[in-house]
């Protein structure tokens, strides 16, 4: 019975991998019509279909990402008057950010924190994704486990942050149980509302952003490859090192990029949970709050540029496009 199940599982994997017609289609997904030559004969609309399909997302990205970014860029060269902005071009905002110790420290600290969170979410997220993709064969069980990961995202972000008070707080569950089992005599007051607690919460918040892409990468791995490695005498570690890890790399890189970018821009968690934690996002919000948009914009542009360089380098290192699309 187990063998039959394995066989069916392998078939389904191969079907997904090779996109075989009869297994990949279903009601409403009939194979496309073919011409006499056996090749597809799309109509005129079909020739442009791929372009039309991109129009909504391109329009969205243009209007709500590109245009605002251009506005931020333009603002970064404007002059702050003390109560607003005047369109006098200046580089002083960039000079302030790049040649003032406090802003350089701020950027370095934000980068360091984001990198740490990426690393920890990867360490935590990879085994979870691996288990879900390659070890759980019962679809219902997999669905339930993924649901457990997703459910926290159904809750309002601020409410979720506030819910850490009764967990990590001085009078919270963690302190209670640590006292109950005799590990500590007095509640630990330094674990909450601190840099550590904010990092901890951000790890919890963003770990799904790491798990999801890795899970998708691992789910497309042809199980025959791991079987072949085993047959050829590879140990479990060697199979992981030489087969699974390289194939999971696109997911790892995409997940890392998601987490890195998200944590760089998160100023709510440090504000609510971080005690006196001071990130670039917080300072951008504060400067924008007094309408010093030029300085806030300059700081934003520099952060975006740094993030972009890091993400490009990551993608270049693993040749992400080739791995994803080939």
């Amino acid at each position, binding site marked *: 019975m187990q063998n039959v199940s394995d066989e069916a599982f392998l078939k389904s994997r191969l079907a997904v991998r090779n996109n075989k017609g009869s297994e990949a289609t279903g009601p409403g997904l009939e194979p496309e019509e073919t011409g006499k030559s056996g090749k597809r004969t799309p109509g005129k609309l079909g020739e442009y279909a791929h372009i039309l399909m991109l129009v909504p997302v391109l329009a969205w990205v243009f209007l709500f990402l590109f245009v605002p970014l251009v506005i931020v860029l333009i603002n970064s060269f404007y002059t*702050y008057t*003390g*109560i*607003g902005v005047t369109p006098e071009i200046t580089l002083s905002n960039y000079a302030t950010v790049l040649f*003032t110790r*406090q*802003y350089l*420290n*701020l950027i370095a*600290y934000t980068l360091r924190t984001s990198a740490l969170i990426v690393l920890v979410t990867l360490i935590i997220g990879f085994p979870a994704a691996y288990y879900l993709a390659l070890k759980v064969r019962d679809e219902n069980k997999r669905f339930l486990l993924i649901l457990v990961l997703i459910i926290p995202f159904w809750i309002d972000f*601020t409410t979720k942050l*506030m819910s850490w*008070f*009764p967990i990590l*707080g*001085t*009078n919270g569950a963690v302190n209670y149980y640590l006292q109950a089992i005799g590990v500590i005599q007095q509640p630990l*007051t*330094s674990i*909450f*509302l601190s840099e550590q607690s904010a990092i901890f919460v951000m790890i919890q918040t963003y770990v799904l952003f790491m798990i999801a892409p890795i899970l998708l990468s691992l789910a497309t791995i042809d199980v025959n490859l791991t079987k072949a490695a085993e047959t050829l005498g590879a140990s479990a570690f060697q199979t992981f090192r030489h087969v699974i890890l390289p194939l999971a790399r696109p997911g790892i890189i995409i997940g890392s990029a998601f987490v890195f970018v998200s944590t760089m821009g998160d100023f709510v968690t440090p*504000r*609510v949970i971080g*005690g*006196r934690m*001071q990130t670039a996002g*917080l*300072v951008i*919000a*504060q*400067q*924008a*709050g*007094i*309408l*010093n*948009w030029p*300085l806030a914009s300059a700081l934003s542009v520099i952060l975006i540029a740094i993030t972009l360089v890091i993400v490009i380098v990551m993608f270049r290192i693993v040749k992400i496009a080739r791995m994803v699309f080939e």
Partner: protein
Amino acid sequence: MGAESQEEASDPARQQPDEERITRRAAIGRIGKIGVGVVAAAAIAGGGYYAYTTTQAPQAPTGGSIKMFSYSPLYAPDGYASYLKSTFNIDLTSQLGSAATLGDQIVSGGGSGWDTAIFWGAFGKPIINASPAVLQPYDLSAVPKWTSANLDPLFSNPQSVIGDVMGPQLQRDMWWPGKIGQSFAAMPPMYGVDSVAQNAQHIDHLLNSWGDLMDRQWKGRIAIQDIPTVALNNFALYLVKSNQMTAPSQIDNLQKPEIDTVTNYLTPNIAAGQVKAFWADYGTSVNLITSGEVWAADIWNAAVFSARAAGTPTYYVVTREGVDLWVGGEGVSAKVPSSKLPLVNEYLNSRLGGTWAYQAGLEAYQTPAWPSDEVKAAFPVEFYNWNFLGQATYQPIDSIVPGQPAYIANALFQPTQYKWSSASGTPSSNGNLKDRGSIKNIESNIGTLETWEDNASYYISSWTTMKQA
């Protein structure tokens, strides 16, 4: 601006002719700008407007919706919203923004998405002076309840209460530039004074100084607001009164060296871990107190009642160096059409009435018209005397909050839960007193005004450096 001239300005009979001329001129001007070829069309199109403003008295509004943008849910409690609906058929919907970035949110939106916006003086200058304008002025005659007879002297004659530096500044934060006493930029629907809240379970005596927040016995148990343009001035008050700083010419508008002096005082305290958290929104501030993480903080007055409602005994203390005055103002969007202004005016006028004052009173705040007869009539006598005149409740505290020592019981008193008497009575010698006493007492101790600072950006950069300590 004295009380007399304000009375003159508030006289609708004196205001009307000017207003009418301006409106006529504006209407004619509009037509004149249109080319000869379209005069007929303009006459038809503009005719209704002209006729409305000159030959017909403004129609009483028949109701509608008002979209209000503010930084606190306290400006639109259910009791007030249902009053507006039942009395004026006004549907009040509110949209909340962050207190820390209020100016940004109001100005960057260009006045779109709301009819009125409530902000306080800390963001007043850029909002009122925004170009292009996000607000439009509204005449004193739009809010007939704004009369010196109705008003606290803080508003009818600010200089007499807060002096010649803060007084004119308060006026600049309320009135349209160049039209003080004539046209509002943002009429205050509510005001209050901020000081220090403390958890009575953990601190067994009343604090009395901003400097107490840096007392090492409360190390790691303090929160301060993450709005440097407000927080730094409060500590400047302490430093001046304790002779650690030369008195600035304007304590609510510090110069760079003065800001440095304050941050130099705070930095070693921050580095030592004195401050557990920095708060930037109301909910967080309440949570910090009720969770027991923080024992004292420079939070808002209403947050004290929210903490009490959660069962945390909390006091709002008198800081001997002075308290921090804030005045909320409600501006009208530049995009509100003239046809909607009668409705908006009716709504704004209700902000000076009894129902709204009562709702604000439940949060320990007051409206500028709290001395008016209408407001008096809206309050049970006992509540009015407690809230504004500093008199004790008729019932002793041990019968209101039984089973607790008086120090804790008083810190648990909630005006929303107490059954106020509508009859005249005798204040109990053991009754509850409102924290910090009567409005007169509180206003005699105002040390600083929350207003826009010329060096706001420097406040933030110094604050950033301080937090990195």
